[in-house]
């Protein structure tokens, strides 16, 4: 009855003959405002950048010592570690995950690098390599639990956070390796604490490292297939799986890479703080700090949306607020209060700009 069928659809599809084949074109508004809106729309990291600039200006007026080169370079060095942890956190959150263990991996890796050097007399360079490998392994364990056993990332990393932090204290026996010993016997551990000083303004190597990592990851996420797979995995994991993305592999790689970044952050911590201490606050607060940077930077906690450059600006916003408020105010309790207010405010402004430019 094929003919029958043909005639059925044929009865109206005759109208198709001569249908236009051109693509619809509408004239585009080209006013400056429209273009700005369009640019904002296309460039998600632009919004936190604007918030950052606004807050710089405000603090420039409010605090007299703010716009000194020294202050600004101090801000950069204060966010170096959070920025690197933020790289780890960003890729994880892009997959709709979360990593509460970033700070713990960083601190534990730094302790491992230090103790392996000092306890076992291993050359510092080798100890660093071992530390980086172990950090990657810790991340990979997170990844395997999440991807293979399909456990929720929040709970897995909540568990490994506790486990690694406890292991860190147990292994280190709560001992701090003193700065003087490191400088003498294992200067490689302190590599990222060195600085260049163009015109007397000190900029740590760690700051350049952070910027380089952000740039590399921005490239990888935007311009490689792997980066697209990370986004797809976070966007709709079932769809990604059906469309041919090896989501399990991607997840494991993402968490392992995050572990590596954390271990790098651990190495940077030694350079920055001089000593190796298992009690470093990053172990407790690194996760919240890095998540804050990520969210202020406009990456969605539901995965698949946002840019790592935004995270960088997010970290800077927090750094600027903290430093600015300290310069303006006195009482740490009030500073703490105001940082809370400003974080909400920053995200509200961000949201408002997005809406206006929608």
């Amino acid at each position, binding site marked *: 009855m094929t003919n029958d069928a043909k005639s059925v659809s044929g009865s109206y599809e005759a109208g198709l003959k001569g249908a236009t084949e051109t693509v619809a074109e509408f004239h585009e508004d080209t006013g400056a405002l429209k273009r700005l809106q369009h640019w904002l729309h296309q460039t998600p990291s632009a919004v936190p950048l604007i918030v950052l600039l606004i807050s710089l200006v405000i603090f420039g007026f409010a605090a007299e*010592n703010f716009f*000194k080169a*020294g*202050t600004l370079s*101090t801000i950069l*060095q*204060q966010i170096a570690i959070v920025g690197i942890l933020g790289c780890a956190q960003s890729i994880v959150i892009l997959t709709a995950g979360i990593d509460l263990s970033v700070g713990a991996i960083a601190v534990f890796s730094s302790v491992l690098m230090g103790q392996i050097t000092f306890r076992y007399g291993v050359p510092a360079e080798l100890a660093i390599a071992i530390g980086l490998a172990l950090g990657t392994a810790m991340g990979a364990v997170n990844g395997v639990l999440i991807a293979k056993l399909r456990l929720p990332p929040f709970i897995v990393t909540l568990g490994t956070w506790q486990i690694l932090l406890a292991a860190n*204290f147990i292994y280190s*026996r*709560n*001992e*701090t390796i*003193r*700065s*003087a010993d490191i400088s003498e016997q294992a200067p490689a551990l302190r590599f990222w604490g060195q*600085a260049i000083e163009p015109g007397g303004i*000190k900029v740590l190597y760690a700051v350049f490292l952070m910027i380089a990592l952000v740039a590399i990851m921005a490239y990888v996420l935007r311009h490689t297939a792997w980066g697209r797979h990370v986004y797809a995995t976070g966007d709709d994991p079932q769809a990604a799986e059906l469309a041919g993305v090896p989501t399990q592999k991607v997840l494991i790689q993402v968490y392992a890479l995050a572990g590596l970044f954390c271990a790098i952050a651990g190495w940077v*911590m030694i350079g*920055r*703080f*001089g*000593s190796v*201490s*298992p*009690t*470093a*606050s*990053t172990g*407790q607060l690194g996760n919240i700090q890095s998540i804050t940077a990520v969210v202020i930077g406009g990456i969605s906690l539901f995965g698949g949306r946002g840019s790592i450059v935004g995270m960088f600006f997010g970290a800077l916003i927090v750094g600027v607020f*903290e*430093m600015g408020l*300290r*310069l303006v105010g*006195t*009482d*740490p*309790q009030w500073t*703490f209060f105001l940082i809370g207010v400003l974080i909400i405010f920053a995200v509200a402004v961000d949201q408002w700009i997005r809406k206006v430019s929608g």
Partner: protein
Amino acid sequence: ESHGVAACLITKTDTNPFFVKMKEGAEAKAAELGVTLKSYAGKIDGDHESQVAAIEACVADGAKGILITASDTKAIVDSVAAARAAGVLVIALDTPLDPIDAADATFATDNFQAGLLIGQWAAASMGAEAANAKIAMLDLAISQPSVDVLRDQGFLTGFGIDTVDINKWGDETDPRIVGNEVTAGNEEGGLKAMEALLAKDPDINVVYTINEPSAAGAFEALKAAGKEGVLIVSVDGGCPGVADVKDGVIGATSQQYPLLMASLGIEAIAKFAADGTKPAPTEGKAFFDTGVALITDKPVEGVESIDTTKGMELCWG
């Protein structure tokens, strides 16, 4: 014979070297006397809720005695009372409870005194310059647990600065104070806090720190800023801290004796289990004072101190 006696040690945290050493002291003594010791700790500074849970666990477990360094000297009083009512000997270590008789006994150090000593030392070291000092205050946490307040206010008192409300730090109006920052008592916190205060005023010349790790962090920040010769004072007297005094990183520190407190406490519990006697306080004080000593290699007139060689012998970890 104290075999079969169970005891508990509950510290504020178990990451601070001070409490780690206290635990080691207690364990050593417990092993010597044949007491079974279980240790507990708060999760963060000021965490009295975990301490309450630990007290309850000890009671449920049938412990004979509890040694506790209270995170909040008032807030755990009820749980301590409940434990005592259940026949457990409760000894406060390091910090007296409020009221002090809430515990059966107290083996404590005087944190205010510890702060006072370094304050006096700093003022005397500076001499007339003390009137123009620029002081950075590196405290513990914004929740201001009692050690934090006692050491801070002790230092200011010793230095000759009006503390306004002695139960609170940060409310002082003296222009010599550049600012207060919190450090969480570790190197990282000390470094970041010092950086922030230096951005505020690069001419800081006196730094009070809550403990020696934060002092080490502050020193790194000062070194990076190229500032030599700033007076750093601290409290604790741990071996790395004394070494830092020796190396000139820290000018002076007040040494405390956690090992002594802990071993005394275990002995008291063993004794109580054996014959029911409770320990007595130091003559003239409401508690048994385990003492504080100022350690410095640059002694000053009018403030009693010991040098780092002696300090190294007495240090606890």
